[in-house]
């Protein structure tokens, strides 16, 4: 039992639950500010007026044309990508934490991202081989490779989420050590698979793609990929938001949710599919970016409570903000070079995760709950 002073502190923190509307409004404005800040940050010197000029319909002078291109064609795609990836990873993290009923379930940690990586590497290395064997035309091969990559990544992610789920859920309760150990095992297997494929099958060109992308990067994408990614993220977002009440009930336990009238099979299937789709698509285009799905939902829960009605939409916005901001640092810290975003998220997220673990052990000595 906590000491009386600890209890009052925690209770005081809980009393003021902010209203949904004001929080979402605030986060949206914050996001907009960050987007503008990001549009104005980078190796090339720009000012806010350059940013505004880019998006107005006036004819740019030749001098500012370069800056316009930098803003609209180099920075903007990345910002949109950061937005989508941040939202997707946070939402997937929140959903998985609801499914496993544990705040430690992060897509990269428990191995979902590795599943996506296995699928993606398979696509990168094997699809060209298949295209040649089937003697496909250049155009068809291109299309197959463009769509095959995210599709295979998503299949990998879905398959793996299912495996993790079966292994770590025992009689309706999440066995947390099993979940985390499964993650370790899956991540190891994923790494080994990627290593094997890379060593035996990959050409130099493919090797380059794979090596950099395992660290997570927002720089490898173009508008085409961003649009495809957008599809695979925005649609799941809308589906997920409708499950907020059901997920609250689910947190009590699968049996309890059933008694409350929740269609538990449907919820489970939806959550697994949607999280895996979002994570798989993200991994396909940006590699493995870890810890976002762990840290951001935790921050939202700490500030606003675990009610999914607020957690899901606020998490989406805060996740987008987090990654847009992280992207700014990735692009400016080592200017004129760039830091890969996966490195940044790991540097900050890793210690954060350790701190969470340590804190949870002291609050509740029986189990890894927070």
């Amino acid at each position: 039992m906590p000491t009386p002073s600890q209890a009052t502190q925690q209770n005081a923190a809980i009393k003021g639950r902010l209203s949904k509307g004001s929080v979402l409004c605030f986060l949206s404005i914050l996001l907009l500010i960050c987007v503008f800040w990001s549009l104005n940050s980078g190796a090339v010197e720009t000012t806010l007026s350059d940013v505004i000029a880019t998006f107005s319909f006036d004819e740019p002078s030749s001098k500012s044309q370069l800056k316009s291109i930098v803003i609209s064609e180099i920075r903007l795609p990345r910002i949109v990508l950061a937005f989508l990836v941040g939202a997707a990873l946070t939402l997937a993290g929140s959903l998985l934490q609801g499914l496993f009923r544990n705040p430690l379930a992060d897509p990269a940690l428990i191995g979902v991202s590795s599943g996506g990586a296995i699928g993606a590497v398979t696509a990168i290395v094997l699809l060209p081989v298949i295209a040649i064997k089937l003697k496909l035309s250049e155009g068809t091969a291109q299309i197959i490779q463009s769509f095959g990559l995210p599709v295979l990544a998503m299949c990998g992610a879905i398959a793996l989420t299912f495996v993790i789920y079966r292994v770590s859920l025992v009689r309706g309760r999440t066995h947390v050590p099993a979940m985390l150990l499964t993650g370790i095992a899956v991540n190891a297997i994923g790494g080994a698979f990627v290593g094997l494929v890379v060593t035996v099958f990959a050409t130099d060109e493919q090797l380059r793609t794979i090596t950099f992308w395992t660290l997570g990067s927002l720089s490898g994408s173009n508008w085409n990929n961003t649009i495809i990614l957008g599809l695979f993220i925005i649609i799941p977002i809308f589906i997920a938001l409708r499950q907020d009440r059901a997920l609250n009930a689910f947190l009590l336990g699968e049996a309890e949710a059933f008694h409350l009238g929740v269609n538990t099979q449907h919820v489970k299937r939806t959550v697994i599919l949607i999280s895996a789709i979002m994570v798989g698509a993200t991994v396909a285009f940006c590699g493995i970016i870890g810890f976002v799905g762990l840290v951001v939902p935790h921050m939202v829960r700490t500030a606003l409570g675990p009610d999914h009605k607020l957690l899901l939409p606020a998490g989406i916005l805060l996740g987008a903000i987090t990654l847009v901001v992280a992207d700014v640092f990735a692009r400016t810290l080592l200017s004129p070079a760039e830091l890969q975003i996966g490195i940044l998220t790991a540097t900050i997220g890793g210690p954060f995760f350790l701190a969470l673990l340590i804190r949870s052990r002291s609050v509740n000595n029986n189990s890894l709950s927070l």
Partner: protein
Amino acid sequence: MLRLSTKRSSLLNFLIVASAQLALSNTYAEVDERIVTIGGAATEIVFALGAGSSVVAADLSSIYPPQARELPMVGYVRNISPEGVLSMSPDLIIATGALGPPTARKMLERLDIDIIWLPNLSTPEELLSSIKTVSERLALTEAANALIEQVNLGLAQSEANSSNWTKNIPSVLFLLEPPGKSTPGMGGGLDSKANTLIDLAGGKNAANRFAGFKPVSMESLVDMNPDIILVGQSDRHGGSPESIQAMIATPALSEVNAIKKDAVYPVPLDDLAFGPRLGEVALRWNTLLANHAAQDKQ
């Protein structure tokens, strides 16, 4: 290609080539352009042509000459930041084919800046044509000719030296890193840059059953039984003196020719860059091989 008399000692030839190299790098041509070079070989070519003072930024793989390391870095050749390149306000970009990611490549092409795309240099012909291309653009044909001659000198000398090795062509294995207790080594098979270099140095590749760089176990090393082992070294990658020593001391490898005859040599990893020092590199490798071709005759 010039053919030098084989009667001149190889040491003398080596000195001729090396001093010509030094002389060239001290001449700074006046090129009034801001150049960004991406890819070690591209940077080296520009510096070797004497236009080093015009290079305003390079990438992390540009480690030679030492002056290049002092320049602002726009990323590693496989992960270039287009905005970083732009922020250097370049008039000209010279990049090797290794530049990535693909979106960066497309973005750079889309911008209204002169770009020279060099191939991912892996043969002497590619090196020579790259030197010509760059020199034409920078109007440094004189320097280019001298450089080309120097490269050809080294290659020709190497070929001459090894021309009478017909019966005793040494088999050479190049390792990116030596095999250790728990890790295999990485060997250069057919169709790799190491293979080409071994060829230019007059040897034959002991690793002739696979292509590209692949892991090589102790057992396959014994099976290949090379006469000479070359281990790549650099500040951060490749074999260290300790790991090479450990490999030599491994009992399982004691019957391998190269180890029996003490023919394990470290070489700079940079040798694989196929930059303007190619002539010197080929000749140096050739000299290492020559010692053992001669020994075998006795």
